[in-house]
């Protein structure tokens, strides 16, 4: 180490980026020599841990379809179609026993994943009993396991409504930078409310009808009370 820059002229030891690069490579090798302790090598990972790792592994093979609703709903939503079963054969038993849904925070999204096979009648459509004044249905897509509706008012403001079966073939995602969320209830169903963090970003309400095995999502620049009112007016048609 020598005096290599005017910036370093007042420092007793001087180093430049090349020195740092060389030192970092030496330290990198030292990091690579770290070994797990014998006690830690015996550690038996918890079922909870295995479930979460399964969720990541499963995510690696998913086909993500993201929809970004324009204008007032800047927050994007992910609808996820999973291509097959989850990974990690060693944890297959735990996976088979885990009939529930799991919420995982990723760097830029929240993912709700469902486990087990939904049993129940096929959804043929959804009726939304209440909407704020001026909104009307402008788009609709119904598929076997999921569907969405778009409602728009005269100012071009949107309400996006999505539903999906809760089973291993589907998942529900929200593009979000881990904004705080509030656990609430829609009728008696558990629900999560996400407040949009940026100007123009919509609020999101997700709720889960565990009895019927259906997850719902609303995304709109509306107050929480309005979203809940819409959610509570939703009626599912079967057959």
């Amino acid at each position, binding site marked *: 180490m020598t005096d290599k820059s005017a910036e370093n002229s007042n420092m007793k030891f001087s180093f430049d980026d090349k020195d740092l690069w060389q*030192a*970092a490579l030496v*330290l990198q090798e030292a990091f690579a020599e770290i070994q*797990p302790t014998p006690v830690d*090598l015996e550690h038996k990972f918890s079922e909870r841990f295995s479930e979460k790792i399964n969720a*990541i*592994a499963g995510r690696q*093979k998913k086909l993500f379809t993201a929809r970004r609703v324009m204008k007032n709903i800047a927050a994007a939503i992910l609808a996820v179609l999973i291509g097959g079963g989850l990974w990690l054969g060693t944890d297959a038993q735990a996976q088979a026993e885990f009939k529930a849904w799991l919420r995982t925070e990723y760097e830029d999204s929240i993912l709700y994943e469902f486990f087990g096979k939904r049993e129940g009648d096929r959804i043929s459509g959804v009726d939304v009993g209440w909407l704020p004044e001026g909104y009307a249905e402008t788009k609709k897509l119904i598929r076997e396991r999921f569907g969405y509706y778009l409602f728009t008012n005269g100012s071009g403001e949107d309400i996006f409504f999505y539903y999906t079966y809760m089973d291993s073939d589907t998942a529900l995602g929200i593009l979000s930078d881990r904004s705080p969320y509030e656990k609430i209830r829609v009728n008696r169903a558990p629900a999560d409310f996400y407040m949009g963090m940026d100007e123009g970003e919509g609020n999101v309400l997700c709720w889960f009808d565990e009895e019927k095995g259906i997850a719902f999502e609303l995304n709109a620049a509306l107050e929480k009370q309005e979203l809940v009112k819409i959610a509570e007016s939703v009626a599912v048609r079967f057959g």
Partner: protein
Amino acid sequence: MLIYLQMAGSDEDKRKFEQLYQKYRWLMFSVANQILENTQDAEDAVHQAFLYIAENLHKVQDISGSKTRAYLVIITEHKAIDIMRTNAAATATESIDTLQGVEVHPPPGSGLAEAMARIPAQYREVLLLRFAYGYSTKEIGKLFGASPQNVQRMIWRAKAALQARLEEDEAT
């Protein structure tokens, strides 16, 4: 109007992730446990590390190489310290900025590398990611939850910490 975006994880990525998990989970757990001294928190740190790795698989080339092994240790250390920071904030205890990371021993006489091994963990991580892994300030910022400008400031602080460490070593 709706915009559709598709991102498909390839089979190669899936295999890579699986191999990393099978090969390194106990090492990563051990690193996290050394810092957190709590097995549940350590598992959380390993989970967070794997989440990060899953989204940055392109950074991993040779599964068995020392560069990859060191990378996983560094990311796990970072996530463990993140959890420690969260726990410390909850209990309003000590400052985390001076926290030392996992113990590491570069060869004696390696000078700057020895000093780098003993500066606070977050500075050490910034320097390693920047210089050993070629991370941009934006990439480091994403990991640290900081802007590129703040990362640049962290790099300068890391260099100052290194300078102080060298001076302290000479004095003793």
